């Protein structure tokens, strides 16, 4: 589907200069410090055009750190809802994937995926700044691919199609 000129311009701006917002959902802070180290002169995320902004209303990408504590869960959800479409979510570290060392503890929800849909996972405890930059660049690639096909819906429908095909072929049990 060919996009209009204004749409292509917007897509280009989003890819070339995505703005991120960071949400700490009860983490030990190591991931947050590594993100800030990314923004410092040594690793310098800002040379890619990536700006870290406080307000979710200005963001394209939401980075979530920490296993989501019960108190932060509803707030995480509210922040995610405030971000205008198209939005992408990066879950950082072992905590974002399955709770990390905090798996099964009584005051955490454990998985970011239980609260908001996640697009990219970055592995590590904490991930190094280079790995964080890699994760953000992967997210930008996703953004570019989705933009070519008119948005995230394309990818979500594709995932459903692929899963159904695998179930039919017998490679995945439903």
């Amino acid at each position, binding site marked *: 589907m060919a996009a209009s000129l204004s749409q292509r311009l917007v897509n280009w701006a989003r890819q070339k200069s995505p703005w991120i*917002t*960071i*949400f*700490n959902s*009860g*983490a*030990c*802070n*190591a*991931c*947050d*410090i*590594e*993100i*800030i*180290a990314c*923004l*410092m*002169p*040594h690793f310098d995320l800002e040379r890619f055009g990536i700006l*870290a902004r*406080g*307000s*979710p209303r200005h963001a394209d990408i939401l980075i979530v750190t920490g*296993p989501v*504590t019960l*108190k*932060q869960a509803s*707030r995480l959800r*509210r*922040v995610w809802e405030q971000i205008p479409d198209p939005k992408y979510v990066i879950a950082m570290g072992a905590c974002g994937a399955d709770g*990390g*060392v*905090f798996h*099964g*503890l*009584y*005051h*955490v929800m454990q998985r970011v995926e239980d609260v908001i849909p996640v697009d990219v996972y970055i592995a590590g*405890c*904490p991930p*190094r700044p280079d790995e964080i930059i890699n994760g953000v660049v992967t997210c930008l690639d996703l953004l570019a691919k989705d933009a070519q096909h008119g948005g995230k819906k394309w990818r979500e429908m594709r995932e459903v199609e692929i899963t159904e095909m695998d179930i039919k072929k017998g490679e995945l049990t439903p």
Partner: protein
Amino acid sequence: MPEVIIPIGPQHPALKEPVNFRVIADGEKIVRIELDLSYNHRGIEKAAEQRNFIRVLPLLERVCGICSHSHATVFAKGVEQLMQLEVPPRAQYIRTIIAELERIHSHLLWLGVAAHEIGFNTLFMWTWRDREAVQDILEEMSGNRVHYGMNEVGGVRRDLNPSQVKAALSRLPHLEERIAKYVEMVERQKTMLVRFRDVGKLTKDEALKYGTVGPTARASGVDYDVRKDDPYLVYADAPWNVVTDTNGDVYGRTRVRIGELAESIKIVRFCLENLPAGNIRVNAPKTAPKGEVLSRYEAPRGELVHFIRTNGTDRVERVDIRTPTLANWTSVAVGLVNQNLADIPVIVAAIDPCLSCTSRLTVVDNGKRKTTVVSFDELRRKNLSNNEEARP
């Protein structure tokens, strides 16, 4: 009473953990302040009772990302005392090197964040760039920039070979030069002198009465430092001094932390140059005898206490963790009374909180019956504009 709840939204990435405090204000002056810590509560103490001594160390390391080695060491030290294990000297030296490097990187981090609070962003960038040199040494030694995983009950897990020691020693002169620059700067830089003076003042009696620990207390002339009071690791042998100051305000705390940077480098150099040969660990028994120990450690933010009780099995029965920031909280709650709302960012940053106040701030205004939404960022901007002339 009309209450104001600030919408969530992480502010500048420099502000790390979310914590909520309710500030009851009368116009611009603070009347009372209350704390809410549930944003970060994960239930670690309960989980630690169900993991054996090998599995519990990675969990305890991740209580905090900046003082992770502190938590692991204080726990290992306590359990070793209960098991009556004699940890070999080489392991003690390696633990000390990592501990002091952690202190250096933590104080540099704090210096950057405090500078950011007063609008001095250049210093923020400089200190965090210098931190990278420390992170490089730590990564060469342990494999990770944060959460080093060096400790186990009975010693350390990784040894230092001569090339690592040489590489670390070669990075020290650059760090020493940068620290000397910061020492000089805190004496002369007008920005800091003006913005930090007379803010958050604590007298010596107040510091003792409110149970303050760490650099916050030492800036008020209280000379408690667990490394001298109850020496552990190599602190009894290494040549270093406790740094105190008599100012008691944020400026005093800055001077103490920068002074501690200089002392820590001395300890690191001493340990690297005098590393004894030998084993790095002893075999620890699987279970610990029944007993109780109060294990203390001087973390970068102050005195960290683990109260450990064992019952003869391969796991602890109870570990009760008291972090230094919790101990310093009472002094903040008291020190902020009758100060201006706009001073909150600087005063709270001055205790170097490991739960840095950020998004949530509830302001309850006693006098006027109206709701004002004040975000932390606005408070900082107001803070900066109130002190226009101090901007560099």
